[in-house]
């Protein structure tokens, strides 16, 4: 039931993009000149490719994100049962949270959270 609706939502989203593109293609003007195909940068001819190596800091944060995001995913199923488990839930998650906080503290101490 909900799967059907979910697929409907996805199709609706794709339909929105396709329909708007199709209308724009249909009624929009069409012309071509080489300058139009240039990237819009600063006016002088574009130098080299844009796919250059970027700052390493971005990857560092991406890896940190991966770690913490997986950890938060594990918190979801636990969060649902806190009400039924009471203080026991606090004890069970205590160790897990300790690791989570320790990981953050370690990254902080190592300077991984600084933007250099």
């Amino acid at each position, binding site marked *: 039931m909900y799967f059907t609706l*979910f697929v409907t939502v996805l199709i609706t989203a794709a339909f929105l993009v396709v329909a708007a593109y199709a209308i*724009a293609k249909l*009624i*929009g003007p069409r012309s071509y000149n080489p300058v139009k195909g240039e990237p819009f940068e600063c006016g002088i001819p574009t130098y080299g490719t844009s796919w250059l190596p970027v700052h390493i800091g971005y990857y560092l*944060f991406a890896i*940190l994100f991966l770690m913490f995001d997986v950890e938060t995913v594990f918190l979801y199923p636990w969060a649902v049962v806190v009400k039924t488990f009471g203080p026991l839930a606090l004890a069970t998650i205590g160790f897990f949270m300790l690791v989570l906080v320790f990981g953050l503290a370690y990254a902080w101490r190592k300077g991984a*959270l600084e933007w250099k």
Partner: protein
Amino acid sequence: MFDFRIVTTWFDELLRVTCGLSNFWTILIECVVVGLAILLAYALLAIVLIFMERKVCAYFQCRIGPVRVGWWGTLQVFADVLKMLIKEIFAVDKADKLLYYLAPFLVIIASVGTFSFLPWNKGANILDFNVGIFLVTAISSIGVLGIFLAGWGSNNKYSVLSAMRGAVQMISYELSLGLCLISAVILTGTMQISGIVDAQTGPWQWLIVQGHVPAILAFLVFCIAGNAEANRGPFDLAEAESELTAGYHTEYSGMGFGFYYLAEYLNLFVVSGIATTVFLGGWAPLNIGIEGFDAVMNYIPGIVWFLGKTFVVVFLLMWIKWTFPRLRIDQILKLEWKYLMPLSLVILVLMTVCVAFGWTFTING
């Protein structure tokens, strides 16, 4: 309170019994109706939000905003949409065409996908999975991919820079967003959106009251992180117009740009809508335990409550956008990783303690 399921059941029976259609055709027609409803609501809200943003921004800057097209400028957005539609669609010659044309799909899918989780009224959510909140965060993270691919596929140095900034910012703020949602899930004990709202009906049962200190903190952190997640100022580094021309959508013309514009405003609405659902009670009316007052409040339809509360949060976020200067990339990351992230972990633990020992605010009666 009016239950919207009366309408859906009536429609279902109309197709099945009165028209005598088979199961397949009934479901197909219902799905088409649902799809059209989503598109209609999506387009309508986008127009309202864009108009609102222009007016709010204008008044914050001591201007009066659009006034020429239509009465008080009401037709301005329609004119803008029309203008976008009749522009040519073209890509940069050296762009990665596959990624370039794929990116708007991902952004719109993420936006429409999360949009259809919102509870409009009692019994009027389109998607109501039992893992609702979790799925909302999962789908919203597809948006990061769309923005990243758009910037990367454009083959423009500014766009690549902007894509990197946008990606690192959005994935970072997703963490505190998720943790705040988890603290709300702890309080309600369910991830289902309708269940979360049901837990908030009754006198003083909105989560922000029920969970007192941790819930209020979680709401504030959620608003900040949500603002960053929707790529809006003061966190609009990815489209910093004064540094990066327009950011990841520089190379998109006409409707291609329109999708990002649309998605930005709808993401703002979705963030506010989720904040409303999770902390401010969704469609649940304000009940204070006095019978007469509650009866009057319950008389107001749920959709009015939902839209009213959501637009209050939207206005709050617009207020933040137009009053604070843009942050630098290092400040943004510092704010998230050194302040919001530890704070949301503290909120999580506080909330767990409150729930585990029953220190939540509840009135039985």
